[in-house]
């Protein structure tokens, strides 16, 4: 009963937020983006124990795939990128939304396929090698794309502007992100309760034993990462339309921005919990915006310090801390020896 009330209130808040704070429409959409990438990072990082530093690869690839699909529906991509935002390339309503729908879907599917291929190579790497390997994939992709003139090289691509009223566009993008975020949350909530979720946790706890018990670990790892990549790819595609113009190194494959933020969000909120990434993303985003406004110039130093402090001193995260302090809120009981066990 309590839970139903809580969820309803949160949904209503999410639905009316852009109308209550119209000046922060884009900010709130970005907040949903952070929640999306944090949730999907936790799918492999928190639940499966494979800490990827390269999930940003799917974000950037999603952007590019969506842009290429949208443009190629109407024009020749090489001509379009040659004009670099100039020229007379017009998109009608139908072309714009068809491009967005098809582009997002293509981005998600393409990223999922990429995840399977990259995962096939990198999932043999355990622990920190996996993190460094995936970081390498993301950095290499950014560098290669910035040398690829067909997609605009280092200049990036300018997509068409939202064909209606711009304020309306902000709200549309907010609800696209919010819908995707809520969808992912519900999907993960269901997934973590299934046998698949248990298998992922088994891989996190002891991969060799999981394999010994007959789990085909590589198949589980690839499927989990492909799911994360699918959602991040779609989020990247929506971002591409929201940002209008993007370029490879700072926007699409922004390894040290969003690529590391998503990990910090999860650690701050609590790794391996369903709500942790959401809470962490909200806290982190607020912290980030406050430092951006009040410590201009030093914001990056403050963020670096937040990363270090979170990782070194507060790794259980907010949800982990709450679970330790108030286990009864989570339906957990503490027995006398101090062990935490799930109650019936």
């Amino acid at each position: 009963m309590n839970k139903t009330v809580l969820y309803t209130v949160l949904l209503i808040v999410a639905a009316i937020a852009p109308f209550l704070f119209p000046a922060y429409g884009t900010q709130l959409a970005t907040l949903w983006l952070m929640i999306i990438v944090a949730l999907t990072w936790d799918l492999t990082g928190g639940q499966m124990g494979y800490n990827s530093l390269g999930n940003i690869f799917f974000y950037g690839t999603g952007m590019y795939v969506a842009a290429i699909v949208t443009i190629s529906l109407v024009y020749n991509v090489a001509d379009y990128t040659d004009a670099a935002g100039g020229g007379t390339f017009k998109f009608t309503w139908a072309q714009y939304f068809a491009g967005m729908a098809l582009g997002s879907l293509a981005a998600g599917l393409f990223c999922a396929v990429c995840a399977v291929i990259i995962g096939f190579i990198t999932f043999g790497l355990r622990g920190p090698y996996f993190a460094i390997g995936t970081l390498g994939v993301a950095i290499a992709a950014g560098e290669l794309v910035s040398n690829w003139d067909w997609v605009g090289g280092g200049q990036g691509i300018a997509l068409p502007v939202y064909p209606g009223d711009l304020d309306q566009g902000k709200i549309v993008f907010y609800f696209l992100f919010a819908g995707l975020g809520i969808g992912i949350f519900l999907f993960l909530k269901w997934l973590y309760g299934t046998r698949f979720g248990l298998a992922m946790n088994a891989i996190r706890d002891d991969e060799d034993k999981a394999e010994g018990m007959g789990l085909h670990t590589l198949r589980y790892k690839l499927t989990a990462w492909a799911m994360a990549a699918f959602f991040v790819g779609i989020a990247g595609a929506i971002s591409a339309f929201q940002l209008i113009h993007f370029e490879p190194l700072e926007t699409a494959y922004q390894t040290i921005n969003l690529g590391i933020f998503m990990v910090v969000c999860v650690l701050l909120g609590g790794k391996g919990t369903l709500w942790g990434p959401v809470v962490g993303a909200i806290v982190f985003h607020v912290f980030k915006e406050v430092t951006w406004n009040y410590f201009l110039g030093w914001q990056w130093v403050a963020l670096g310090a937040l990363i270090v402090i979170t990782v070194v001193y507060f790794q259980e995260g907010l949800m982990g801390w709450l679970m330790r302090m108030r286990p009864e809120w989570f339906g957990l009981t503490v027995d006398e020896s101090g062990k935490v066990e799930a109650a019936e």
Partner: protein
Amino acid sequence: MDQVFGNIGMLFEFPVVNVKIILDGLMIGALFALAAYGLALVWGVMNVKNLAQGDFVMAGGYIAWWLTGKGLPPLLGVPIAFVMLWGIGWIIYKLVISRVIGRDLFTSLLATFGVAIMMAQILNLLFGSDTQSVKLEYETLYFFDGFVDVPIAKLIGVIMAAGLAAGVIYFMKTSRMGQAIRATAQNPRAARVMGIDTDKVYGFTFSLNAAICGAAGAIIVMVWLIQPFYGITYSIRSFVIVTAAGLGNLPGVIAAGLGIGMLEQYGAHVFGIGYQQAIAVLLLLLVLMVRLAQQRRVRQVLK
């Protein structure tokens, strides 16, 4: 694509070009090897993977560059950067690293990544985001009718790098502290039982690593370019070298460093200078894949 084949063809048509590329690669590879040796030291002794390695290099470079701007002779920047980075390394060890030793490896990776972001940004705020270098007033030697140019400044840089490496190796082999470091790397628990203050050894090792990187950076600013955000590429190169060579394999680290330097120069020649960073990173993936294939073979034997 035609351009790539043209560039490859040029290598065969004018063999002298190879000499130039190899020399350039060896000279820059010597500096990569220096930073990689520091990483191997920290990795081997305290099992911490330091992603801030490249930012130590950049910090050393900026210290030397700043001092040269103040009128000091550029070569003096190398020992000063060594000392200053020693101090910075010690502070970072006390604040961050000492608390991640013994934790799981992703923790140290992420914590040092945070340190790397902070250092790059502080350098950016202090010195701006332009690329910088120090010009040394020395002649350039020419060989093969002027096809191959070797600036004496670069030669001095390589000699200083070699001298620093030799000094560190001699120190590790002969001094009491060097013995303690090697003992701790072999078995920290036994070292503690034998009366070695391992915490002190860890602090010393990390400071030494930062100091080596700082000196390497002070040399790099004389022979190449520095920029606050180039650090991550140096970190990745160090990882490539250490992963390829293996821990505790000093000749391997030097060989791998020189090899990576050469491969990068060849790659930059064939594909164009814009691909230099990408090549460094792709080499990492290549090395990881080769390691993986080797491990697979081991696993098959176990079946």
